[in-house]
């Protein structure tokens, strides 16, 4: 089973990486994760962010991700010690 963490996006670093303040971790996770992790995302369900990395810019990521509460399905950790993840919206703040 994939490890999953949740948290808020605190900083956009590039058009495929951001800083996450980790607030929740799945109980069954095999690894433990730091309070702050750098996420490299391979795909996302956030509509304003183009799937193709080359079509994205920092402004789109700022608008679509900054401060948002998201879910990260962790695929691996890369050579830069960043978590490679699938990123999606999580839950709802309201109804």
């Amino acid at each position, binding site marked *: 089973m994939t490890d999953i963490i949740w948290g808020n996006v605190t900083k956009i670093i590039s058009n495929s990486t951001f800083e996450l303040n980790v607030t929740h971790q799945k109980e069954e996770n095999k690894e433990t994760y730091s309070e702050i992790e750098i996420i490299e995302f391979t795909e996302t369900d956030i509509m304003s962010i183009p799937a193709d990395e080359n079509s994205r810019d920092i402004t789109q990521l700022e*608008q679509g991700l900054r401060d948002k509460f998201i879910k990260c399905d962790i695929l691996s950790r890369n050579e830069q010690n960043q978590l490679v993840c699938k990123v999606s919206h999580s839950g709802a703040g*309201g109804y």
Partner: protein
Amino acid sequence: MITSNKLILTTKDVIPTNTYKNLISGKTSAVIIQNFLTKHRCKKIIRDIAIYEASSGCGIKEKIGESINSYVSNKSEYFTKTKISNYYLRKIFSYNDPRKIMFEKISKLLHGKIKFARENSMPYSEGIIRFHIPGESVHIHRDNASFDASEFSVSKLSGQISAILHLQSSELGGELVIFDKFWNCHDECFRNQDFGYSDKIIKKISWSSISCNQGDLVIINPKKYHLINMVRGKLKRITLGFFLGQESESNFHAWS
């Protein structure tokens, strides 16, 4: 717990001054228009609703109508499903549409015209009927389309407020509790994984409680944290609600 007294109680023949301004500033937590609809008319609407099948959605097990919060990642599905639910809402209310008189009354309070929102000629959901079943409660949350639904054009409207018509009271419980605290983006670290926020967010914050009285129309600023107490007894708590946002000084759009 600290109780607050920021509720304005009024009747359908009275128009309180500065309603919108005071809701937006937080000076008023809620405006309650008592006996807005007669109990007889509410019961008639409930009978009309009863023949239609409800679906489940974000934070609720039974509802008719859609809410954009369930579709923040799937806008096209929202508009597809809304087309169907708007058809059912129009059928339910074909002889007896409470939304018309809600619009009339609220437009007087807001000093502006109201119409349901559209985006590229596609209509937004024209309200949502929520059935809170006995044993169900709604955890602390806030509603803010500008932040949560930035892909939808209603996110560009300003000053979101919420109108809720109580069609059926629960026997016990089901109160709407509204806290004297506005959401801000730093609160996102208190989000629950599935829905709403940690209780920590409202610790030591004063609050007002609004009973679910059949026929009352309640208008709140949904950016203030709020929750619904557990519904108890045999009856469902049934409400009809929608949001409103300001497009210009005298024009408001509604959606759910």
